[in-house]
């Protein structure tokens, strides 16, 4: 009887899991489907599930805009911002986790509170700073802004992961004569690698999808894929097919990357949850 209940619970949970997964994936599925429709098919009511697929939207998107230029900018900005943020966040999280002071908790909360401010609230000062330092429409400017935007969340995540590493292991390293740098790079980092990897991946995804700053601080030279997508929205004319094709092209790399590294991501996010 108990076995029967267990099996039916498992089946129920599996169905629920699949249901939620399909529900979450449906908008992406529909976007991909629409990208293979003609503009007339894209607007047809009721919506068509079966149709003769066409690559015309993709052809037009490639003809009208330089996808690779936007994609390269996105890669530079995402990788650059993530790498610098991790490089700054690791020592910060290390000191907060292992050498806490009485202000550590307050500092952590203050860092997180900067994420609570709507970005538009600081648009004018940041725009003026970027203009005066000649960083408007440059990847460097966007790397700095994205890095600073994500830094609080990265420090928080790394701090949480580092707290899971038993302090006696680091002490043992110190007993063997390791310096602070060696303790951090040779003992702590290998132990917390899954956590660091998942944090980096999350930062990469956040930078990849960031639209507010990229639309406001770049125009052409440093414009990333979010600007590429926005350029296919039209105030007067049908554009759903082309917009879907542009969106599919923009999310495809990060979707594939996320799919490949999902094991690492799950491992990292559940790091320390089960001992």
């Amino acid at each position, binding site marked *: 009887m108990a076995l029967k209940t267990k099996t039916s619970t498992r089946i129920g949970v599996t169905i629920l899991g699949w249901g939620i997964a399909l529900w979450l994936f449906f908008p992406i599925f529909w976007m991909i489907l629409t990208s293979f429709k003609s503009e007339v098919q894209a607007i047809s009511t009721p919506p068509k599930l079966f149709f003769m697929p066409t690559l015309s939207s993709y052809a037009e998107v490639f003809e009208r805009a330089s996808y690779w230029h936007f994609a390269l900018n996105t890669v530079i900005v995402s990788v650059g911002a993530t790498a610098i943020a991790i490089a700054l966040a690791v020592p910060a999280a290390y000191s907060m986790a292992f050498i806490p002071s009485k202000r550590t908790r307050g500092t952590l909360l203050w860092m997180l509170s900067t994420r609570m401010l709507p970005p538009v609230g600081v648009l004018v000062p940041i725009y003026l700073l970027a203009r005066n330092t000649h960083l408007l429409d*440059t990847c460097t400017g966007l790397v700095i802004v994205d890095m600073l935007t994500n830094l609080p969340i990265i420090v928080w995540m790394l701090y949480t992961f580092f707290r899971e590493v038993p302090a006696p292991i680091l002490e043992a390293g110190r007993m063997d004569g390791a310096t602070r740098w060696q303790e951090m*790079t040779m003992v702590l980092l290998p132990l917390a690698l899954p956590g660091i990897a998942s944090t980096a991946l999350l930062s990469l995804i956040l930078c990849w999808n960031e639209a507010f700053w990229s639309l406001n601080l770049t125009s052409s030279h440093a414009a990333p894929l979010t600007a590429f997508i926005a350029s296919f929205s039209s105030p007067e004319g049908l554009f759903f097919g082309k917009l879907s094709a542009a969106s599919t092209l923009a999310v495809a790399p990060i979707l594939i990357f996320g799919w490949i590294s999902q094991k690492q991501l799950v491992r990292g996010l559940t790091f320390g949850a089960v001992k």
Partner: protein
Amino acid sequence: MTRLKSTRTAICTLALLLTGSTLSSAQATGTLTIATVNNGDMIVMRQLSSEFEKAHPDIHLNWVTLEENVLRQRVTTDIAMKTGQFDVVTIGNYEVPIWAKQGWLTEIKPDAAYDVNDILPTVRDSLTADGKLYALPFYAESVMTYYRKDLFQKAGLTMPDTPTYDQIRQFADKITDKSNQVYGICLRGKPGWGENMAYISSLANTFGAQWFDMSWKPTMTSDAWKATLNWYVSALKADGPPGATSNGFNENLALFASGHCGIWIDSTVAGGLLFDPKQSQVADKVGFAPAPKGPYGKGPTWLWSWSLAVPVSSHQSADAQTFITWATSKDYVKLVAAQKGWVAVPAGTRASTYAAPEYTKAAPFASFVLNAIKTADPNGPTAQPRPYTGAQFVGIPEFQAIGTQVGQTVAATLSDQMTVDQALTSAEASITRALRQSGRAR
């Protein structure tokens, strides 16, 4: 040690990458940056701009295509902060006079060969402030009525030469067939100063209503406004598609093009799109008529032009003017006709375009568009004297905020969250507050 080396290598590579990206962003001399929107005519302009670059080898064009609202925000920021990121900007006749008065735009002085008098007077006047021209029109639009000839024929109806709103309502009632997803009338319902309020402002004018009296007091609770909104709400509720508050220009275009609308009153720019079999399933069934008349029957109707202007912050003003005179010239119209066909030429700006028999043959709606633009008269009188200009908008900087706020209130009446009276009272209160805050009214 090896790990340390690889860390250093990674940092150096990143630094080089970033330095490279900074250097690559430096603009080449003679490069004009053009901010534009993703409309069909602009796409054609971009495709044909290689001809301009061939004729002007020292000028290179760099295109920035933005979403309409992002474009306004970016361009406003750029000009107000004198960043000089854009040399040519695409703006409407709402912005041109306001920005010109702020000193943000360069006066345009085309040469005699450009033939500025060929530009339709209503369009030219809407881009003029204090007697000076501040932008050149790329294409212009007014309002007209689109209807399905086959549905009218089936119902035994005939569209009059000058329909009234009462007649339109009767026609819509007769051709509505909700079981087959055919809706008698489609109108803009999506909230926004350039969406539902563009249509409603124009509707209000012909119903004898207006936004303000001569002392800048809003007149939303007047009988004329009540009649306007009652017509709009009852027509959409009885004969409109479901979820009308989500429908703007594009959504209604999609509905009409896929055969779900019997009548649609909207921008003349839709004519070319509905007439194109590649984009419209009803291309051979579309009929055209002028915009309907309300009880007042007169008043400004609708005039919008997407125009090219040169911000004062541009460092290459002369080259920018050379480009915009090329893109709005008679020669450009001929170039589009030769490369893309006459039906694709930018409409609504030049008298010479409408004088070309090839164009009137290719675009059967041409005479309606020309007449609608000629008679739009955005500076003309409303039923009562008014202190502002504009047909489907009020030509003051506060209107973007006011229009969108009132648009949301109007949308609430469609979704039964408010009655028409409540909406108008609430709109009047919010407008009064906004104008008091801006200092325009006391």
